[in-house]
């Protein structure tokens, strides 16, 4: 009996060993597709997709592995280099160009035919065509940003919910947007930011919470302002070769943004290192945050905080703006089952899966009709997501900048933006950072 159990344990151990071997090699169970994603909020919905896929293709089974964003990319790189990468994985536009350059992604063109690219929200499918003209991902979802505000604080400030829906902004005096932020700022003595005697050194509630200095893209930090001035991150998108951080329109906007910190309307950068911007909002330390739709369940999950949503302010060009980012599913070049992997990607990119994801109400699927299902699912939870969808409806989105050298650009711009927002350097210093960034593209 004992010996038998031992044998069983050995068999189990060797099983788990082979399971570790993952993607390549013959050790993996026949017909298993390894699939990686990073958002644990979305895993249940994709498990539903995996089950439906298995039902339609009984010879194929999808095994989902979730890793947090912080580990995801280094784990992926390591798995690629050791030949144990997942067959299919959730991919990001800032990452895939480097994978393509290193021959790690399978071009989908030869494996997936007759996908109707028009079913996806405009522009999303184009993001995933590399410079060689081949397609490396099928769109799975999209995101935009909006204003999250504390309804009670807005009421206490004597502001109207209706007014919140229609704010305007400019880089000179900040418009009604800055007036609102000032009004919502309250110091320790209860004096508001727009009242005489406001003590900016001793602020109890900041009008605007900020997550940090915004790195190279400023997705939820500054990109919704800069885009309304006509500024773009790069000379063209996708595949620009020139960044524009030296442009006065960009630098003026960042100078305005920093002025909010100087006036005491937004927290000093050094105080944002620690608890997340959303937890500070949940703790009543800020009245307004700008964030993406992927944070909806987090913001609406705080006890005792009534959250309102509003679209980002209109800018100098008379329009609103939101960065439009879309994830996709890619196939690793080292997969042992390209046909099965491609089949799974096609399934993920179809209404069969995206309707399921939409119904879960966690994210907006890339397919327009599935996104409508998501909108209804959010509405059932009592959340009106029109501040996010309005950008898509009005065409006020702009795409996440896709270029080569993205991780080097990130590494250069992160400390450069920190210096400016920390008050250690003038916005003019970003011109020098821009030169460093653009030097990356010389001769490539």
């Amino acid at each position, binding site marked *: 009996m004992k010996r038998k159990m031992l044998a069983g344990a050995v068999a189990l151990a060797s099983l788990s060993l082979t399971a570790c071997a993952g993607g390549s090699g013959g050790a993996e169970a026949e017909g298993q597709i390894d699939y990686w994603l990073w958002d644990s909020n979305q895993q249940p919905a994709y498990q539903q997709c995996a089950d439906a896929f298995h039902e339609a293709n009984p010879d194929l089974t999808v095994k989902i592995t979730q890793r947090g964003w912080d580990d995801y*990319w*280094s784990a992926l*790189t*390591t798995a*690629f*280099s050791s030949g144990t990468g997942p067959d299919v994985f959730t991919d990001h536009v800032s990452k895939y160009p*480097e*994978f393509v350059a*290193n*021959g*790690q992604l399978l071009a989908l063109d030869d494996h997936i035919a007759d996908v109707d690219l028009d079913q996806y929200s405009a522009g999303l499918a184009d993001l995933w065509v590399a410079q060689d003209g081949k397609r490396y991902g099928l769109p799975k979802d999209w995101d935009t940003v909006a204003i999250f505000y504390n309804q009670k604080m807005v009421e206490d400030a004597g502001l109207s919910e209706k007014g919140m829906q229609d704010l305007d902004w400019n880089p000179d005096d900040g418009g009604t947007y800055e007036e609102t932020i000032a009004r919502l700022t309250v110091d320790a003595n209860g004096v508001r930011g727009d009242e005489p005697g406001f003590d900016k050194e001793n602020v109890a509630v900041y009008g605007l919470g900020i997550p940090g200095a915004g790195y190279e893209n400023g997705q939820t930090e500054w990109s919704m302002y800069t885009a309304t001035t006509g500024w773009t991150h790069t000379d063209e998108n996708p595949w620009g070769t020139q960044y524009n951080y030296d442009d006065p329109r960009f630098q003026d906007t960042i100078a305005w943004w920093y002025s909010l910190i100087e006036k005491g309307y937004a*927290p*000093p*950068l*050094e*105080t*944002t*290192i*620690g*608890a997340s911007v959303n*937890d*500070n909002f949940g*703790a009543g*330390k800020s009245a307004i945050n700008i964030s993406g739709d992927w944070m909806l369940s987090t913001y609406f999950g705080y006890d005792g905080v009534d959250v309102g949503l509003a679209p980002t302010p209109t800018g100098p060009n008379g329009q609103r703006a939101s960065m439009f980012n879309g994830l996709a599913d890619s196939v690793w070049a080292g997969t042992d089952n390209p046909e099965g992997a491609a089949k799974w990607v096609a399934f993920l990119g179809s209404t069969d899966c995206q309707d399921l994801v939409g119904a879960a109400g966690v994210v907006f699927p890339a397919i327009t009709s599935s996104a409508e299902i998501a909108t209804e699912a959010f509405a059932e939870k009592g959340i009106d997501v029109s501040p996010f969808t309005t950008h898509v409806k009005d065409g006020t989105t702009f795409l996440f900048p896709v270029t080569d050298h993205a*991780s*080097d650009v*990130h*590494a250069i711009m*992160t*400390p450069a933006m*920190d*210096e400016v927002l*920390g008050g*250690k350097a003038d916005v003019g210093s970003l011109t020098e950072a821009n030169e460093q960034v653009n030097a990356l593209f010389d001769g490539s």
Partner: protein
Amino acid sequence: MTTAAVARRPRNQLLPALGMIAPAALGFLVFYLYPTLRGAYLSFTEYNVLGSPVFVGLRNYVDMAQDDVFWNAVRVTFLYVVLNIGFQTVLAVGLAVLMHRLTKSVLIRGSLLLPYLIANVVVALLWFWMLDFNIGIVNAVIDAVGLPKVAFFGDEAWTVATIAGVNTWRHLGYTALLVFAGLQMIPASVYEAAAVDGAGEWRTFWRITLPLLRPVLVLVLVITVTGAFQVFDTVAVTTAGGPGNASRVLQLYIYEQAFARGHFGYASAMSVVLFLVLAGAAFAQMRLLRAGESDLT
């Protein structure tokens, strides 16, 4: 030793000896020597893991000499080591002497080790929350007694000292235990003699304890200094090198260059330099503090 004892020894001790070293030696060869040699080789190449290494001669080292972020990382790392080792050693020796002279309780001695039993990352996150500017308990207390709040991790002036402090908190008990072991090796007769001669606690500490503790202290210093130079996890889970580059220590910069930016060749070159610095520091400590000799004999 009698001749009989010699006769009973196995003829050839080499084989059993090799057999016993083999597991450790194999581990050393596979997990230390080979990676070190390969790292040294990669430092002369351009390599992003996914492709194959391309030999570039000394270019990585030339780039390093001109890389402001690298030199800043060296400066930040040294500052960290000085602060961390400074606090930690002084406190650990104090704590060990208290353990030695004041209490025999195993419970108290054991509980000093508790922080060391918590994983580094957990300790870092724990303090990251407690020291948070807006919702951390430490700043709530500071605020309550009317002092200005401190952005411990976010303020450039504080961030390295804070990280050094957090790691001191974690390693203090362990270091004290090592020093304590050294204290127990000092014969009680020396203390009795000092007491007979009328020396007080203070004088006994400086004239008896510290000199006789020196060899152990050197060993402890070599271990802790080498460990301190390799600080990584505490920074990685809290400030991630920020604000700006204020806490971008060498190990973090090496990690970023390799795993986030795909510059494994350049990262290897920096690792080689760090290796040389550490070897030099350990050697200097051993020589300068005469680790091999004891004042007891």
